[in-house]
């Protein structure tokens, strides 16, 4: 089954329809998703600013990470659960939404950035832990993280707009390709 097929199947499930049509559940889940930004991205921003040497300069970077990571992890768990529920409520439209796709790709990049930081710069953190301004690779990781999460937040907000949706044609070929709407436009070939 294609991904689009899987989304179509998901959209027909009872839970998806119930959440989609609910008067309060969907707005509630969305509110939790948005407000948990404060916890998850808020703590990440503070850690990134430390890596850039812009906040808590006298505190060891590792202490900052150690103390904030549990909060970031719980915040991230809430984000993933509520985010998955939001997708579950509106699978097909989300899957074919250009901003949703940008958000998912950027999420992977943010994960990659965190992983590279973990295996690279942080492993040698003993050398720079006390530096008020960490070395360039650590600063780069912090700046990249800030930029990537900003893109994730903005594209996440934009999912709500239907500017590039499949049912709003004509769109440019690029948009139709990027949103996967091409399949919709394929002419129906009569069977044998």
């Amino acid at each position, binding site marked *: 089954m294609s991904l689009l097929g899987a989304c179509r199947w998901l959209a027909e499930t009872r839970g998806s329809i119930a959440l989609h049509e609910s008067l309060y559940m969907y*707005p509630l889940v*969305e*509110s939790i998703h*948005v*407000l948990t*930004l*404060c*916890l998850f*991205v*808020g*703590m*990440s*921003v*503070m850690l990134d*600013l430390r890596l850039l040497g812009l*906040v*808590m300069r*006298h*505190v060891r970077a590792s*202490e*900052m990470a150690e*103390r*904030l990571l549990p*909060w970031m992890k719980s915040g991230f768990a809430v984000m993933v659960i509520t985010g998955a529920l939001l997708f579950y409520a509106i699978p097909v439209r989300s899957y074919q939404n250009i901003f949703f796709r940008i958000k998912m790709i950027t999420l992977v990049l943010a994960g990659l950035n965190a992983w590279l930081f973990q295996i690279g710069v942080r492993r040698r953190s003993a050398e720079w832990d006390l530096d008020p301004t960490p070395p360039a690779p650590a600063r780069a990781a912090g700046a990249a993280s800030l930029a990537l*999460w*900003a893109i994730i*937040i*903005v594209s996440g*907000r*934009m999912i709500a*707009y239907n*500017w590039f949706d499949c049912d709003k044609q004509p769109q440019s070929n690029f948009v139709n390709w990027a949103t996967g709407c091409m399949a919709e436009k394929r002419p129906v070939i009569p069977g044998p």
Partner: protein
Amino acid sequence: MLWPFFQWCEASAFGTMIRESPWAFAVIESVHLLGLSVIGGAVLLVDLRLLGFGLRSQRIADVARNAYPWLVGSLMVMLLTGVALFFSEPTKCYYSQAFWVKMTSLALAVLFTFTIRRRITMADETRVRPIWFKIVALVSLALWCGVGAGGRWIGFSG
């Protein structure tokens, strides 16, 4: 008394411009959300510390002093973008309960943050009874949650 003012805002060139632009509201709202994540971090870092979590081996005053510029800066971004969003739909806001919940919480939160909370966080830690740190943190969190939840709900009302 406020109704004519809200109507004036709605009819203003600024309000009309945002309302009629296909993308202005979306862009301003995105910046509003970016500000939210920074102010969230700046508030939480201090409130968690007051509750004995997060950067608990650092002095409260140190954490508060470090977070302060980010708190003020992001609050400015929130207010500027918030006013712009308001101008695009003032009459809708006037009839939205969520809007008034948000404005009331916001006024209280700002007042509390820059008076009592600032005093407590900057005070000599040994001379304040620990329970006060916790009370201040909980009041601060409750007020800012009111602002956030009210704000999100404006979008669902009307």
